[in-house]
């Protein structure tokens, strides 16, 4: 269980490298309690009543933004959503001024997504409100890493030590991959990545993983398979010839899944391109925890918002 002296009060959540194992466990354990609230008849507690949370998204998003908003509303916070299409950003306002404007309106927390790596770190230097990084380019997506860990633990994989974790696909452009790797490394997992070399950072081993050019080699004996989304725009960038060939050579299908350990778990951050990086059958496989990830995403984000905005670390403080 979390130690009593661990607190995330006032902390910006920018990446998972900077969270300790105790802090991650605090979030995970708090999320267990949050999930219970989600199952109540009246899904609302006043833990964040009187707090203003603003979601500031410079990229399209359905699940992450909605998930943070839902989480905040379950906790009683006021939520305002800003998407760049209908904000002063289209008038050319820079990030500093946007953030300072929100700060001066009295907001307590900013949930931020940007296509620019480091944008959340920059925002955290600029502003006083808590910044929660909801994805900055290919850098980090800490809440995704935390919800994937939660999903694995909930499924019974409590200890990652020595477990073979395989990440398939576009590691080069994936903040999900980086946050999962950062998290899993802290718990001693054996991490492998596979996919075409063009979709890997050149110095991929610097991530602390083993690279396989062939997906089959990576999947042998895997305990967890995390399939990354192939963004549609990538296929015209010369990185691989076609979605068709990608699916055939690198996609997760039932034949390849059989190479993994029996009962191996499949994760996918969504949204899925069914038939490309993951086959239709695998997307709805009994060991695919993709819908659990979505549900747990709300619980983990409730925990993050609660812990950073109240500084509380006692679960009983929620009600």
């Amino acid at each position, binding site marked *: 269980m979390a130690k009593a002296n661990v607190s995330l009060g006032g902390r910006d959540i920018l990446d998972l490298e900077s969270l300790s194992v105790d802090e991650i466990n605090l979030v995970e354990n708090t999320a267990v309690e949050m999930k219970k609230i989600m199952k109540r008849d009246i899904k609302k507690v006043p833990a964040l009543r009187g707090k203003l949370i603003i979601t500031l998204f410079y990229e399209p998003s359905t699940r992450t933004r909605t998930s943070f908003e839902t989480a905040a509303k379950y906790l009683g916070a006021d939520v305002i959503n800003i998407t760049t299409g209908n904000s002063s950003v289209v008038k050319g306002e820079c990030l500093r001024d946007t953030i300072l404007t929100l700060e001066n309106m009295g907001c307590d927390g900013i949930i931020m997504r940007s296509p620019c790596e*480091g944008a959340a770190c*920059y925002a955290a230097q600029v502003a006083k409100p808590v910044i929660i990084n909801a994805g900055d380019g290919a850098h980090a997506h800490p809440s995704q890493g935390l919800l994937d860990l939660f999903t694995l633990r909930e499924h019974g994989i409590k200890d990652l030590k020595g477990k073979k974790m395989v990440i398939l696909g576009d590691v080069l452009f994936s903040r999900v991959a*980086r946050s999962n790797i950062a998290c899993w490394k802290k718990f001693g997992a054996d991490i492998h990545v596979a996919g075409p070399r063009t979709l890997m950072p050149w110095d991929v081993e610097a991530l602390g993983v083993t690279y396989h050019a062939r997906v089959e080699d990576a999947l042998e004996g895997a305990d967890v398979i995390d399939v990354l989304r192939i963004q549609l725009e990538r296929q015209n960038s010369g990185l691989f010839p076609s979605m068709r060939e990608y699916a055939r050579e690198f996609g997760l299908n039932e034949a390849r899944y059989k190479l993994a350990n029996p009962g191996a778990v499949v994760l996918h951050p969504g949204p899925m391109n069914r038939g490309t990086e993951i086959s239709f059958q695998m997307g709805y496989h009994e060991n695919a925890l993709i819908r659990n990830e979505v549900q747990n995403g709300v619980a983990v984000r409730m925990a993050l918002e609660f812990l950073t905005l109240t500084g509380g670390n006692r679960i009983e403080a929620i009600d």
Partner: protein
Amino acid sequence: MKLLIKNGRVVDPSQKLDEVMDLLLEDGKIAKAGKKLNVSADRTYDATGKVVAPGFIDMHVHLREPGVEAKENIETGTMAAAAGGITTVACMPNTKPAIHSSIILSGIKERAREYGYVNVQVIGAITMDEEGKALAEIGDMAKAGAIAFSDDGKYVQSNRLFLNAAKYVQSFGKPIISHSIDQEFNNDGYMHEGAVSAQLGVKGIPSIAEDITVARDCIVAGYTGTHIHIAHVASKGAVDIIRQAKAKGWPVTAEATVHHLTLTDEACRSFDTATRVSPPLRSQDHVDAVREGLKDGTLDIIVTDHAPHAPHHKDVEFTKAPNGFCGLETSVGVVLTDLYHTGLFTLPEIVDKMSCKPAALFGLPGGTLKEGAPADITILDTEKEWTVDPDKFYTKGKATPYKGKHCKGKAVATIVGGQIVMEDGVVCKK
């Protein structure tokens, strides 16, 4: 006007000189050098315990005028040079419009005479608007005083056009300076491709983007016999290629920047936009290779690539920031701290690479304290300790990856044409 510099350690590799002596400056020239000169002067500067060197020449500076004065102008840029101990700057032509015609080039020289605190040499563009499509009027600019030609900031991507440029400049006897980095790779990344970029998820620029282009430039130098100078060499592959080219006797010279000699891509971890530069800060193995290249003469000179930006241009997300930062006011301090006090380079080596060599390579006045030479002098206090504080800079650009760095060694006086333009960090009216 006579100025007597007393009792300094005179370090002048152009004469293989390194001894304590006096120097008399008269009418803008070095009039006399010798031990305990017994002459009268209008002013005596006591240089006891200090190093007296031929004025430092920085061959890679962006003064931003005309057109981008929000970032710098000739006055502020040359004040920064004076403050940093630099007596001559060569300014790059990526202005708006580019320095691609003699009238623009003459205009800069005219303004530099009026507003400049140090000598300004001008580098003309190779192609119109630096677009790499049509040759600029190189002959016209050479006659107006261009010392070299470069499309700095951009690589002349067309092999055919670059070969033509290399042939064409021969009628005017000027070198070409190449900003050697493949444009396609360069426009598709924000930092050095390596372990740090992999971890940060920031798109990287492979070091071979530099090697490939340096190889072509060396091949063109060998083929044509035209002197081609490679700007800001930052990769070990490029150093190797230049070393091989020189061994073949090809007329290639090259420069290293202060930052590529002293910083790695680890500096980018904080997403500080002051670390964005082209070529990017690379990993330690590349820094070691650049140092080795400078030591063995593969790389000839040290420059800053002083590239100031307006504060609001750098106050953005890392990947949105423009490349470049200011360097004129930190170069001497950083070089003395990281290259001299660490024992990597001797003082004569540093003076050679920051003064004598640049003058010799580009046929510039200065770079020597011989009698009759221009009275351009940099006086150093190698022991002075100070901390880099951008708020005190004269340049308009405040972004520097050295912010807060503790330095040992500083230029304490800058003399241009026999007149003191900086003393103890304060820039004086000419």
